[in-house]
């Protein structure tokens, strides 16, 4: 008798097929509701998007929104990594910082936006909100990454008197990187969401959020959907660029 195993290899669905499927679902919802004000058709959103990209104000708004998200994100990475390193090395610092992070994480983002509206100019509110929401994520992941560094490898390095800079480069950094990159990718998505939300409420000049707010005021659903599609596309684009960048910099090819 011959032994054999059947491998049930699932063929992944083509991304184009998935995209078409959801467009069809959207179109069907549009047919069911039949009212543009609630759900515009994919076609009308596409037409509006085409119109928007012809306008210089569109590119200006996109550029400024990108700047705000990136500024908030870079600030949260710099401070999150710096304070994360100090917190993981000193338990007193960790004990002091941890309640602050818990408070930030459990406070509604709207409360922060309203406070920020009092403190900052409308253009800086999204930067501050993006920083505030991403900072705890980066901080927590850096602390977790450092605390999960293999103690046995550190002992080995200590016994063999390996230079501290080498230990940092060859043990600490590769150990922290998976945590850091996961946190950064999470923050890219989160950053876009909270920055645009802050723009909606603070409506600065040249901002995607401000256009979303205007669309809501004039009940222009096609415009609202078109700008939302822009945010989704930008978020996906930045996520994939960042993921590739991280992969290039850090991940060594370990054959399985």
């Amino acid at each position, binding site marked *: 008798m011959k032994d054999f195993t059947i491998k049930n290899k699932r063929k992944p669905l083509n991304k184009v097929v998935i995209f078409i499927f959801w467009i069809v679902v959207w179109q069907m919802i549009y047919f069911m509701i039949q009212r543009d004000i609630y759900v515009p058709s994919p076609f009308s959103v596409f037409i509006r998007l085409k119109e928007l990209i012809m306008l210089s104000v569109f590119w200006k708004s996109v550029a400024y929104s990108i700047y705000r998200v990136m500024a908030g994100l870079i600030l949260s990475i710099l401070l999150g990594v710096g304070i994360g390193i100090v917190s993981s090395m000193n338990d007193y610092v960790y004990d002091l910082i941890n309640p602050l992070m818990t408070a930030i994480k459990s406070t509604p983002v709207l409360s922060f936006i309203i406070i920020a509206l009092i403190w900052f100019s409308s253009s800086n509110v999204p930067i501050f909100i993006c920083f505030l929401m991403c900072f705890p994520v980066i901080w927590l992941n850096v602390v977790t990454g450092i605390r999960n560094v293999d103690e*046995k*490898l550190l*002992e*080995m*390095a*200590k*016994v*063999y*008197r*390996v*230079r501290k800079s*080498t230990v940092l480069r*060859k*043990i600490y950094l*590769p150990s922290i990187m998976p945590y850091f990159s996961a946190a950064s990718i999470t923050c890219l998505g989160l950053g876009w969401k909270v920055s645009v939300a802050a723009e909606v409420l603070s409506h600065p000049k040249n901002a995607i959020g401000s256009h979303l707010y205007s669309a809501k005021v004039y009940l222009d659903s096609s415009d609202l959907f078109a700008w939302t599609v822009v945010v989704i596309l930008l978020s996906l684009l930045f996520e994939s660029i960042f993921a590739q960048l991280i992969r290039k910099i850090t991940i*060594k090819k*370990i*054959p*399985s």
Partner: protein
Amino acid sequence: MKIQVKELFKKYKDLQVISNLNMDFSSDRIHCIFGPSGCGKTIFVNILTGLVDADEGWVEGLEGKSFSYIFQEDRLIPWATVEENMLFVLESHYSKSEARQLAGEYLSLVNLLKFKNSYPEQLSGGMKQRAAIARAFAYGGDIVVMDEPFKGLDLELKKGLMDYIINDWNHKNRFFFFITHDVDEALYIADDIHVFQGLPLTLKKQITIEIPSCDRGKYRNEMGRYKDLLLGDF
């Protein structure tokens, strides 16, 4: 060169692992730390290497000394190749070219030169342990600590490495601490066998083998008596 352990105390959690231990070790001898598992041998050796602090007491003769430690586990960096693992240690003490040369030399000693570009996960347990042994030998510390280093190695390679330690390294004025449960390994390689019991870790007896390691094959009756002496305790 001499290492003196004086009035050493160590508590681990609620257990008194070491209580007032006093010992002397002389160099140019291979010291075997022999005893049942869990009696505190590894903690004792970790105090000697500075990985663990003693609660009380002190150890003299270790000032400025470097250690080559072969741990029970391989402790190789998983994201570095075998050669990179060697260079991780060696480049802190030698120039890049010297480090690379030493790595190659010692990897051939343990028959791993062909696998220098392999990652630890691509190697068997025995191969990883050989890489760890090569790293320790290449570093060449003043004090060599081997915590069950030959576990998982085939007999031929084990004998080859033990012969290398006896014939080559033994002449280099080094301390060797060899932790093992294996009576045959202890009798093959050690000059002084320190038989411990625990807990707390207490030196039960010390057996000094007068026959040089390289001649032990010729004196089987005498070695049999040493074996009886050692096994008499267990």
